[in-house]
């Protein structure tokens, strides 16, 4: 990987994941509601669509935190960029929690 690509990944990886999760949750939720997939209560009384909507941010958060660990160990960046990358990845982890905690709680479909 070139130095430029490494910087790009370090700076935008965290929020890139956030954006991916955001898109997938939004589109997955809309698709689930429109196609009627996963709405019926499954085992343990939880709708499969709900499980997917919770799993996506959880997975995103786990990956973001893993990325943060890699950055903590130093990823071969200039010191100031390394700090910026850590701040951004930490912020992305926070944002993932902030933006998706309620997918576990709100009613799934119907407006």
């Amino acid at each position: 990987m070139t130095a430029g690509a490494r910087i790009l990944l370090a700076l935008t990886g965290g929020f890139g994941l956030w954006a991916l999760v955001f898109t997938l949750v939004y589109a997955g939720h809309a698709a689930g509601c429109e196609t009627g997939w996963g709405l019926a209560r499954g085992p343990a009384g939880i709708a499969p669509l709900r499980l997917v909507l919770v799993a996506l941010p959880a997975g995103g958060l786990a990956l973001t935190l893993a990325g943060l660990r890699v950055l903590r160990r130093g990823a071969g960046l200039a010191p100031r960029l390394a700090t910026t990358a850590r701040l951004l990845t930490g912020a992305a982890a926070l944002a993932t929690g902030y933006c998706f905690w309620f997918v576990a709680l709100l009613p799934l479909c119907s407006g």
Partner: protein
Amino acid sequence: MTNPPRRQTASDATQTAAAAGAGVSDPLGLGSDPLALDAALRRIWATGPGWQRLAAVNHSIVGRRFMVTALVFFAIAGTLAMLIRIQLATPDSGFMEPGLYAQVFTMHGTVMMFLFAIPLFEGLAMYLLPKMLGARDMAFPRMSAYGYWCYLFGGTLLIVAMLAGAAPAGGWFMYTPLSSKPWSPGIGADVWLLGITFVEISAISAAVEITVTILILRAPGMSLDRMPVFAWYMLTVAAMMLVGFPPLILGSLLLEAERAFGLPFFDPAGGGDPLLWQHLFWLFGHPEVYIIFLPAAGALSTLIPVFAGRPLAGYRAVVAALVAMAFLSFGLWVHHMYATGLPHLSLALFSAASTLVAVPTAVQIFAWIATLAQRRPNPGPPAGPRAPAPVSAPVSVPMLHVFGFFFVFVMGGLTGVMLAIVPFDLQAHDTHFVVAHLHYVLIGGFLFPMLAAGYHWLPLITGRAHDGPAARLGFWLVFAGFNGTFFVMHVTGLMGMPRRVHAYGAESGWHWLNLLSSVSSFVMAIGFAVILIDAVMTLRFGRKAQADPWQAATLEWAVPALPPPPYTFAALPRITSRADRLEPRKIAPLLARGEGVLGLARNGWMETVGVTVAGGEPEQIVILPQQTYLPLWTALATGAVFLSLLFKIYPAAILAALVVLVLFLRWPVGEHAAADWGAMPATAGGGAMPAGEGLSLPLSSEAPVPPALWALRMLAVADGALLASLLFGGLFLALSAPGWPPPLWPALPRAPGILAALALAGAWGAARMAGRAAGRAAGRAAGRAAAPACVAALAGNLAALAACGWMIAALPPLQTHAAQAVLAAALIWLGLHALIGAVLAVNALRRLASGHVSARRRIDLDLMRLWQAGLLPAGLVVLGFPAMLRALAEAAAGAP
């Protein structure tokens, strides 16, 4: 050092060749004589007088033109705003009839957003970036000029249409179906869709150019983490433009296709959906707000530290905040659509992201406050260029506008958080509360910072020092008038006044609030007039500015004179520390003497240094193009395309598009690229030209990654965003539009699909082979070696194009259902890209024949290879799209 072997191709080559390899760093013996160096560089860089001004490509000139033109459009849109306030000053006003009023408010919003705000910051960025980064110009000066002409012509088209009474009248967000043919039968909506798309070309080209300039045209040693923070802001903004503008371009094209040819993308009777327009528009429209705010914030992050005499506090946190903002801003668009009946869970996602964006905003605000708090206790000379520094005034004129920014923007941000809250927004949405909020955010977050920036950089841009109580008077009038106009609108809106009403009854209780707004708006207008008159007087009669009047710490003040000469720097500095902690006063004289990199004038070349992205190590010598009329002609031809489309003369549009293509094919000619300048014996370090200070660098035509390749990478980002928007749009329709699945599913023949896939794969393979063959060949042999592969790539692309045509022809009539219309749109995208691939192959063949390609000079082949490498996966996605669309539509149809 030996002279590089060269072919005499240009008329001036003989004369300049002698100088080329002669001296190491001082070929003309000018190095220590600043006057002689200045004269030599001016001869190369200056734009000619008279009509030759139309050939200008210099970033200082084009940047200034952008800014001045934007201010003219600001005056026009401001006048429209005054008309709106006259209309609303009293109940039951008969000043304008509703149709005219609709044109006025539509044009006010459209001109302010597209023709004022975006071009103004583009112009400022274009003007400042090379100077701040320590480069001599932008990476693609002809693109700057082309973008400017597109902007000027597109904007003029809109204004002329308005004067002719044919302005768009559907509001600046042009909701369908109000903007569709049955409800907007006139030409007005077409003017908007085509005019704005024309202007967007300029925005995309500016975005490409800004990214590439920041990434590689920096002073040697300026690594990414040493960049002035303004460059980080503009890099982020340009990246956002690359992703954010394509959805609007796509939406405009689809809506124009619906209006002109009846393709029902947004018509629910044909499987379209008005909500698709809203999604596409706001997917652009919300990031757009941040695209406008961030350059202004970048200006603040630059000038507040100058005032404080300290570097920006929390540089790293600020960079993190603005990158975070860039991402978050793409997760807000549905907060314009809370009332469209989406499930609460969807709304909540966007509500959360909308409130969260307050955090990076607050980080920046408090970084600025922290910077002010660290202010040097004894300001001394930084009091500014005023002759008798008014000791009593605690702040300079720019800082007065920074105060305006804080006051207004913080309030707008707070109402923004309120509007992000779903239950409150359902009341406030589409009322004057939103009008108040958006003006607080845009005037606070853009206009006041830009005025501050204007006063701050006025000495640089005009060479005039600014004095004046008039500027302070102007500020206070604008500030008081603004708050008087818009603060009361919060109340008017909550009392139920919807947006865009042309009249209201006296019983509503809104009349005195509106009167107050209208009177205040005239105070604000007078304030702008005072500022304008004061600025004109300064230009005419102002004293000459002294060098570095603010004791700033960034490179733009290290230019040899104010205003800067066309070559910007006589030599480029070596940066060894943070580039926002420099001392321009000490650097400027050294650079003016040519003490630095490329402190020389040779061959009539406009040279600047290209560096590695991360470390800022010098990597290549970029030779920029001379002034030329090509951008003007190309923009005129582009304008002819749009005018023909507007008046529905489609053969003329195709003809004009061909002219555009032919003109663009004339762009790459650069005589320096007709020879291997750096093909020296390997023992001499191989492949380099002397660049001064003991550096030897290859010319960009011989560098592994020249700027043009970077430009194509950036364009690919925008292009990918366009395709993604189109595919998203199709899937959205299949999932949730009424009338799906279509009564007759558009079946595509399998043969052309397989043919297209194979042809694209073949073209990709051929393009790779062309590069390898040229790399192995020596000298002119490259042409013969790579030509067969180029012909193969050409054939592959033409086959793919034909296959796309075959598939489109096999579709049922496109007017009958959005399913085939969307498939046709995707296939047209693919066909057009195959066509461009073919053009790139023809270009490569042409350049092979003319000797512009060798083992070292492979840019034309590399562009072709990169294009095909991107087109292959994109093409496979497009070819798989019909199946995806059908699967989704049938799943949605099977739902209970």
